[in-house]
């Protein structure tokens, strides 16, 4: 079994060679010790220090309840982004339970793309155990691909409280809901839901219901004092509408955030998740619990890469597990 060389893949990604992306994804998913070593090499070679700053791409989280229209919308967004000359990678996270171990990954079927266009990559990945959760490999993947793609989208299923992972990973989070489902409204009003950066109401072709949903959501946001969140109504069915406006809103959000701070937080979250995946609750206890681990990571250099952050945690865990 040949495991790709992480440093070499990193060099290709740094050069903007997008054809290195599939192998990069194979690598970060690889759980063998050698696979983890090469992934660490990859991530080190893509650190802000190595890149001379944060990767210029935009990590966009697209999340929402099942069947809200996320994938179909991505197909339209993809067309618009490509029309603007932007390259795009989509990581579609499959929510299906892993009761049998295997998954049916069908999302890419909903996202129309031109197979000869090397500016687009779509990869289906499996979810972590819980709804809305992200496998550590997905976080690592997004961090790596954003070096070579202008936009990296992570599509997950979830609504309500389950978006913490995606909020931690993405520069911009768009929550997608379909008209007629009151969930999001309730969550906003009751303050349960983290307020997304962009709120998208799909299926505008359904007219009145869609209009009403958009109005209600905007009102709910105002009532909790949120004025910055854009609420955008789209239809992904021909003739598609609202897509340009959405692409603009996403791009605009990228310009107002503190990217280095978000990315640093994202790397810390990824390191913690990777640590958890590797050493489990027992490992976390050994470093004094989740809070303590978070504190330790927070003190680290904001530019520290994920392997370095992991090193901050691992020695203690190492003692415990040997």
């Amino acid at each position, binding site marked *: 079994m040949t495991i790709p060389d992480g440093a070499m893949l990193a060099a290709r990604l740094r050069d903007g060679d997008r054809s290195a992306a599939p192998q990069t994804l194979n690598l970060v998913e690889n759980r063998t010790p050698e*696979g983890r070593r090469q992934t660490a090499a990859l991530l080190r070679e893509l650190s802000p220090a190595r890149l001379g700053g944060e990767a210029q791409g935009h990590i966009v989280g697209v999340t929402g309840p099942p069947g809200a229209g996320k994938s179909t919308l991505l197909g339209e967004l993809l067309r618009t982004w490509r029309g603007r000359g932007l390259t795009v990678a989509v990581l579609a996270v499959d929510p299906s339970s892993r009761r049998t171990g295997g998954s049916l990954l069908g999302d890419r079927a909903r996202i*129309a793309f031109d197979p000869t266009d090397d500016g687009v990559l779509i*990869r289906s990945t499996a979810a972590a155990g819980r709804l809305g959760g992200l496998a550590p490999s997905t976080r690592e993947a997004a961090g790596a691909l954003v070096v070579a793609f202008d936009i990296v989208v992570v599509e997950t299923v979830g609504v309500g409280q389950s978006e913490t992972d995606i909020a931690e990973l993405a520069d911009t989070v768009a929550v997608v809901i379909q008209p007629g489902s009151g969930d999001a409204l309730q969550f906003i009003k009751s303050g349960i839901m983290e307020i997304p950066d962009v709120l998208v109401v799909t299926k505008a072709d359904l007219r009145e219901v869609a209009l009403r949903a958009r109005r209600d959501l905007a009102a709910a946001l105002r009532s909790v004092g949120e004025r910055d969140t854009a609420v955008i109504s789209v239809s992904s069915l021909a003739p598609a509408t609202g897509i340009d406006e959405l692409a603009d809103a996403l791009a605009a959000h990228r310009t107002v955030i503190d990217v280095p701070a978000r990315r640093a937080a994202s790397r810390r979250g990824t390191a913690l998740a990777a640590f958890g995946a590797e050493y489990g609750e027992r490992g976390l206890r050994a470093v004094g619990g989740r809070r303590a681990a978070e504190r330790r990571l927070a003190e680290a250099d904001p530019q520290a890469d994920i392997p370095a952050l992991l090193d901050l945690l691992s020695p203690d865990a190492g003692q415990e597990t040997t």
Partner: protein
Amino acid sequence: MMRTYAGHSTAEKSNELYRSNLSKGQTGLSIAFDLPTQTGYDADDELARGEVGKVGVPIAHRGDMAQLLVGIPLDRMNTSMTINATAAWLLALYIVTAESDPAGAVAPEQLSGTIQNDIIKEFLARGTYAFPPGPSMRLIADTIAYTVEHVPKWNPINICSYHLQEAGATPIQEIAYAMSNAIAVLDAVQARVPADRMEAVFGRISFFVNAGVRFIEEHAKLRAMGILWEELGRERYGVTDPKALRLRYGVQVNSLGLTESQPENNVQRIVLEALAVTLGRDARARAIQLPAWNEALGLPRPWDQQWSLRIQQVLALETDLLEYPDIFEGSVVMDGLVAEMLEGSRAEMAIVAEHGGAVRAVDYMKASLVDSHRERLRRIESGEQVVVGLNRYQQAEPSPLVGDGDGGILTVDPAVESQQRDAVRAWRDARDTAAVDAALTELARVARSEDENIMPATLAAARAGVTTGEWSQTLREAFGEFRAPTGVGEAAAQLPSDDNAFLELRDEVEHLSEALGRRLKILVGKPGLDGHSNGAEQIAVRARDAGMDVVYEGIRLTPAQIAASADQEGVHVIGLSILSGSHRELIPAVMDALAQRGIDVPVVVGGIIPDADVEPLKAAGVAGIYTPKDFDITGIMRDIVRLVADRHGAPTGGG
């Protein structure tokens, strides 16, 4: 040996065949179109590759249609066209051909015939859809509204439940989904015709059903359908004329159960299935088509079809079948079965209604069919359901029927495709471009309009010389593209605790995944226009249940799309499924596309692959080939696991 599929390859060849049949006393025409025509592509489209002239005739424009019908008296002809997504277009070509017939114009009022024009079963089973559900239903409603006024002797729709059983439907699902489909169609038309026309519309609707080998139950199914149809007419649409209320149906008997192993046994099956639709007079079919003994081998030759025709003739002319009134009248057993069917169907129809009707319930119905089919295959695999010659009594004498040089099937001359490609290009070069552009602009405008009927603009486009691909592309742009649901994601996971072979397989998958470092990942791909999805769906579901990560995107992918998906998804193995006969062109095309991307993973192929094609495919690099006789899907999965293990030098065998 190569022989031309004379009834189909080209308009000219088909015309010869039709005329010869007519001169022998046949009174009607039945036109089978090739898959590109059925799905709205011209012969030079990438997706048409390998399919031009294969399972039917290619018709790209009014010139082809005129050629197809030359010398045929359209004023006296009853023409049945198996056409759905592009039905409005082919009907327009037919009307235009009649009005400009060199032998004398024939007016639309004089034309009689049928278009299948049923889209829901295309989404659920048959696969020749072209547009999303909403616009597709509108096209159906438009053609019905148009023909009721202008082509009154035409049957504008044939609601099909046949294909649902072929996709795994139980009798109850077959009834319930067909009736729900009819409701969706009738409701859509109701919005487009004056109220007093509904009785005429209702009376024009006919069904195309299936009959399986459990022929007593199947007969009960048809009686139940008759009762439900009448009820629907009376209660929902206020129909009172008893003639209009009677269920009119034609049948093609079950082909899904016909085997590749010991294919001669299929003859018995076909005879029994024919009884299901003829035994009781009160629910007897109007027209019957029987498949041939070599159904699972490939396309039937004229001799094979003749044998099936003779079955019907023996039944009708030698037996006493047709001499009695309804022989089940008063039968407690039959009445009981019918009552059961009615109860089950009503419950299932209620579920579809809860989803908002058949159009909205397509996802639900598709997933239910995939689930039923999985259960069917599980029963066959475990031996619970006996299939003689397949899973019981497999020992047999060599069959003299398949010994012939042609392998017992018909093959199509591949030159047909390039000829048709050149011909359609020549047609485009020779016509009045300005007229074509104007017609397409008008068509696009009407398509985007709310309630204008599509037929007049479609007729104008036909007259202007527009092609099938152009008409369809214009509508695709207006309506959007669509991929039907695959139903596989929802199919509930099956976790048998007592099937040792399956449990061992899962262990093997786990071990290999561990050795690989990530979960074993397979791409199941359907290249080309072939709509036969059953096999791919069941392979995908089983692979998932065995613990693999499965990428399955549904039907109708180009080789380039499959290669791109395989690359981006990082799969360890690729499984391709083709049943339509285009494997000789498409499998090598996929292999080339993979090579171009530098993807070097094992590729296996399944479907209708005649023996003669096995060696050439292996020479092209295919690692394993499976056909309908390989009913042990767990065994197929195990082969696949071992192929990947070998490729990666991983140890095999469960730990």
